């Protein structure tokens, strides 16, 4: 049994990276705890105060549009969010999730079925999400992309690879 329980934060369509992590902090904040303190600051100030590790985001279309800033993923990761479920993702945000080791799940309908504070069940090994009494398949990623996630992200994967190359 590998399923885990997760509390949901639910948001709408076209949420852009400026409200996920304000641009005014992009060159001044790098510490994870500080990143987390500003997560979703201009969308939902309650989030940073009340988020608990393991909570997940459930959102509508085009989550993460706008600037390509990676901190818009890093701030949620630092807050302990392991999975983001959205009807669709902006292209660069999706890539930034994979590359920072945070699972993006594109499910067109889930947002309409859950409410903020609901608990859903995620079984990553079985590739399933159980929510509102229904079971959803997590769309599989290609093996090479899954390998990046499993390594914890692109940079940790490379670090392991180069450490291996240096080993005798």
């Amino acid at each position, binding site marked *: 049994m590998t399923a885990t329980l997760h509390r949901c934060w639910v948001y709408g369509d076209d949420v852009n990276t400026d409200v996920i992590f304000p*641009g005014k902090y992009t060159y001044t904040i790098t510490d994870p705890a500080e990143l987390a303190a500003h997560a979703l600051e201009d969308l939902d100030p309650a989030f940073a105060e009340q988020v608990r590790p393991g909570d997940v985001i459930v959102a509508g279309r*085009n989550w993460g*549009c706008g600037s390509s800033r990676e901190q818009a993923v890093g701030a949620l990761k630092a807050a302990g969010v392991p999975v983001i479920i959205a009807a669709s993702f902006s292209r660069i945000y999706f890539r*930034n999730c994979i*590359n920072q080791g945070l699972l993006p799940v594109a499910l067109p309908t889930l947002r309409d079925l859950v409410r903020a504070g609901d608990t859903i069940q995620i079984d990553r090994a079985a590739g399933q999400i159980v929510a509102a009494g229904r079971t959803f398949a997590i769309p599989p990623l290609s093996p090479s992309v899954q390998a990046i996630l499993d390594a914890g992200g692109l940079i940790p994967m*490379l670090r392991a690879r180069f450490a291996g190359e240096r080993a005798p």
Partner: protein
Amino acid sequence: MAGRTFAEKALARAAGLPDARAGDILDVTPDLVFSHDNSAAIRRIFAQTGAPGVRFPDRVAITLDHAVPAPTTRHAENHAAIREWVRAQGIAHFFEVGRGICHQVIGEEGLALPGETILGADSHTTHFGWLGAFGAGVGRSEMAALWATGELWLRVPEAMRITLSGVPAPGVTAKDISLRILGDLRADGGLYRSVEFAGDTLGALSLDARATLPNMMAEFGAKNAYLPPDRAVLDYVDARARRPYTPLYPDDDAEYAVEVALDVAALEPQIALPGSPANVVPLSEVAGQPVQQAFLGTCTNGRLEDLRAAADVLRGRRVRVRLIVIPASAAVFEAAATDGTLAALVAAGAAIGTPGCGPCMGNHLGIPAPDEATISSANRNFRGRMGTPDAPIYLANPWVVAASAAAGQIADPREFLP
């Protein structure tokens, strides 16, 4: 069997595979990767990988363009760190302060060629579609990984074909075509897609004008954009190319997720209202709106043809509001100095800046005051883009920017032409 789109062919080639289909995820080895003033930050991420050094320094380009010459000590330190890195790693293609904007310079230097895959740590890397290359933007961690390994995973995008017909009227340009597409199909109309242009309009556009189309497609959510390279493009490339290349063209029976057609013959100049490049109206709806500054430049519209358009409007006139002109590259600057274009602009009252991005993203060289409106030839007008959230930005073609500078308000250039 259905044919292949440009994107399917280009990414199969970059992955060393005989074939690829939309949706496939491939490990590609790009022909060139590039970054700019963000290279010092990428270097810090690179250090975390433990890589012994840049894998293919001959495939890496770095330009200093976003804040040049350095406006503050911090910017200067950033540039110094980049120069030091270029020396230490033997990075083959480094372009100093004043050489110009990455997208423009890399084309001029023959470093992006038809059929190639170009990845840049800049969202407007879609630009290279004008050369028939696959150009896509990536994040900073991804550029660090590209430096370290020379390769990166990419998903082959579904394609959208946009067929353009007719020849634009005088004073109407590729910028107006781009803005109309954004206005009609909205800012996520091209999300995840390879936007592949076709149609008889393309051959009627100058090379300078063609670059504007794929550049603007970054505002459309596109992964890349593509124009089929014709003889004119191949001649341009052959005069510069530093390595052999093979152009790629989509098959006649390629499968497109979406097909769109636009007749551009009847188009009038278009304006993007402040806030979004997709917030587009015909010029006639906003003509007369006062502006306090006009800005001509950027990777979208800072080429010789753009400067000449402004000179045509302004010859024998004086600007009523300040006009900032920044050539996209040193080559553009030199050509405009040689043919009398710059003299005409200066005589009309323009202020000329060092080739680079200038005030496009609010670093320096023309930041508006709060409540001052700018009409700009750039590609983005998000709130705060030019440095202060209260300064509205209108986007337009270079003819309109010049006419508006002369009038002190948004003006139709066709009234200024002989």
